């Protein structure tokens, strides 16, 4: 009983159901084997492909917790990949560790600035988050195209490739990065008072101000972190295919990231956030994508299938829905009529 009460019980069950349903179509779905010194299998693919989404969603979680939203993550991802590959492509030795590190540093630094820009528009200038980040969403992709000159930049750098497509300890390096970001976010926010203060600002901004919280700095921090996360995810995606596609990298990623956060139980109006929920959300979305691909759904019907799954997911997660289904079953057990002891309780003095 108590385990079904847990917030993540139903999303978790759904994720499992999605995973298991694959076995009916692909009996080898859960199989893992060693391939060239690294683990290989669908599950690994899911985690590796889901890693960038998870990272973006973690950044988004904080922004949403402050009561904001960041539409610009997709564009920031594109910029990040563009900056890094542009630098690497210009290196004489594309595989030089120092060169790649510089490229990564430049890209992430630039993305921090972009996050700061968003944060300033929201927290200092006071523009509604959706519009403030829309500006960068629109302009950012143009900037990325400008950097790449509209072409796909291809690099040949095993060192760069490591970030999103490489392996360490037989596992995709991306997994380590994603875990690192998630753990970092969880530790920094839950071991310090950051998380609570952010939740307070998102839950009631005016009350937080009157409690002496510097909400401006916290909001800035959330957007900067989101920019950083988007930048890292952009590097992973670009590194995974050893190229930067300014036009398509991160396209519609903001929607998936927000969806992951919301599935995880964080409300869009801000306040309480759940990083583990976001993890489950991101994995669910990636599993859904992979499932669609492996069970071979007609591409024209893909969206219908997605609609169906998202819909079922909402319903199952909704306590109101469960209550309604549950109550119908339970109703006969508890008679609505008044208890027999009616008169005993009424004491009418004089």
């Amino acid at each position: 009983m108590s385990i079904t009460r847990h917030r993540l019980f139903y999303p978790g069950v759904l994720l499992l159901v999605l995973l298991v349903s694959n076995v009916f179509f692909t009996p080898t779905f859960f199989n893992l084997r060693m391939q060239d010194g690294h683990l290989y299998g669908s599950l690994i693919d899911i985690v590796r492909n889901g890693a960038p989404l998870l990272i973006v969603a973690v950044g988004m979680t904080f922004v949403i917790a402050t009561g904001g939203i960041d539409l610009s993550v997709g564009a920031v991802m594109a910029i990040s990949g563009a900056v890094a590959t542009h630098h690497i492509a210009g290196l004489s030795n594309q595989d030089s560790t120092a060169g790649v590190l510089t490229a990564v540093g430049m890209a992430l630094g630039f993305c921090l600035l972009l996050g700061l820009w968003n944060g300033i528009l929201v927290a200092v200038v006071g523009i509604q988050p959706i519009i403030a980040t829309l500006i960068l969403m629109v302009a950012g992709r143009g900037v990325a195209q400008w950097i790449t000159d509209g072409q796909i930049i291809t690099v040949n750098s095993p060192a760069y490739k490591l970030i999103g497509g490489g392996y360490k300890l037989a596992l995709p390096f991306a997994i380590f990065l994603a875990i690192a970001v998630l753990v970092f976010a969880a530790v920094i926010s839950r071991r310090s008072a950051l998380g609570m203060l952010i939740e307070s600002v998102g839950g009631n901004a005016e009350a937080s101000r009157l409690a002496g919280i510097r909400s401006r700095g916290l909001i800035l921090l959330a957007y900067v972190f989101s920019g950083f996360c988007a930048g890292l995810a952009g590097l992973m995606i670009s590194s995974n295919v050893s190229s930067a596609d300014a036009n398509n990298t991160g396209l519609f990623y903001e929607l998936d990231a927000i969806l992951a956060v919301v599935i995880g139980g964080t409300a869009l109006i801000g306040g309480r956030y759940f990083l583990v929920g976001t993890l489950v959300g991101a994995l669910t979305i990636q599993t859904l994508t992979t499932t669609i691909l492996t069970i071979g759904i007609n591409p024209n019907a893909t969206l219908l299938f997605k609609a169906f799954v998202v819909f079922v997911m909402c319903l199952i997660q909704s306590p109101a829905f469960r209550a309604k289904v549950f109550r119908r079953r339970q109703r006969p057990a508890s008679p609505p009529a008044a208890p027999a002891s009616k008169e005993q309780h009424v004491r009418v003095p004089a």
Partner: protein
Amino acid sequence: GCGDDSDDTASPGSSSAAGGGGGGSSEQITLGFAQVGAESGWRTANTDSIKKSAEEAGIELQFSDAQQKQENQIRAIRSFIQQKVDVIAFSPVIESGWDAVLNEAKRANIPVILTDRAVDSEDTSLYKTFLGSDFVLEGQKAGEWLKEEYADEAGPVNIVELQGTTGAAPAIDRQQGFADAIAGESKFKMIASQTGDFTRAGGKQVMEAFLQAHKDIDVLYAHNDDMGLGAIEAIEAAGLTPGEDIKIITVDAVKDGMQALADGKINFIVECNPLLGPQLMDAVKKVVAGEEIPPRIETEETTFTQEQAKAALPTRQY
């Protein structure tokens, strides 16, 4: 091979550039061009070619980027009419729905040239000519090569397909053409077909899933090079050799694709040439001069095998 082709198409452009420059002193031609967007490297090369050859031909270019939205393109064409350009050219975002605005252009006596993609208007007097590739034909060429390649084998040949963006004209037509070409022979089996959105990342992810779900893939047909390039990575990660364990056919012939072809990772590429600029400028001049031009100008396009790619690679422009 192809390098020759590109040079051929470029030469009429550059030769007439001198003539255009000479005549331009009295009356410069203004061309309004409404581009689809900047959604791919192919498109950017296309844009560059048009800009460059307009400059070379001494034609003033009014350029507008519609960001893949038909309504923006309609708006751009309207503004060209308002600005009274001499010729309007555009690559329609989608095939249908152009009658109204093209009628407006007709009423304003501005000739229209379609590039790259066609429109389905019944009234063909709305535009002077269509200049571009035949996507169905591209698919057919891919299919024909496959038939030849497997002519001696009994099969079955298991094919997977990486489609372009759902609903996009090149995706629909390339799928159609390919399917038509292999329809006759029952040994070809299309075992999976998914959209990879024309991107490398998409191609890679979809191919990964294909490889997990199907153990016996013989051929991959990708609607563009980029998805093919992404798929190659997935195939390599699975411990297979692209080009040998799985034969790969793609469309476009961008530089990276050609490189992979030359390296033996792709087996066959059908060219889809973005360098329409010179031919377009040529047509523009003819239209302004009142000359007759054919209602359909095919871009010169070829196909590449691995050997042809090695030969063509050094001179590729994009």
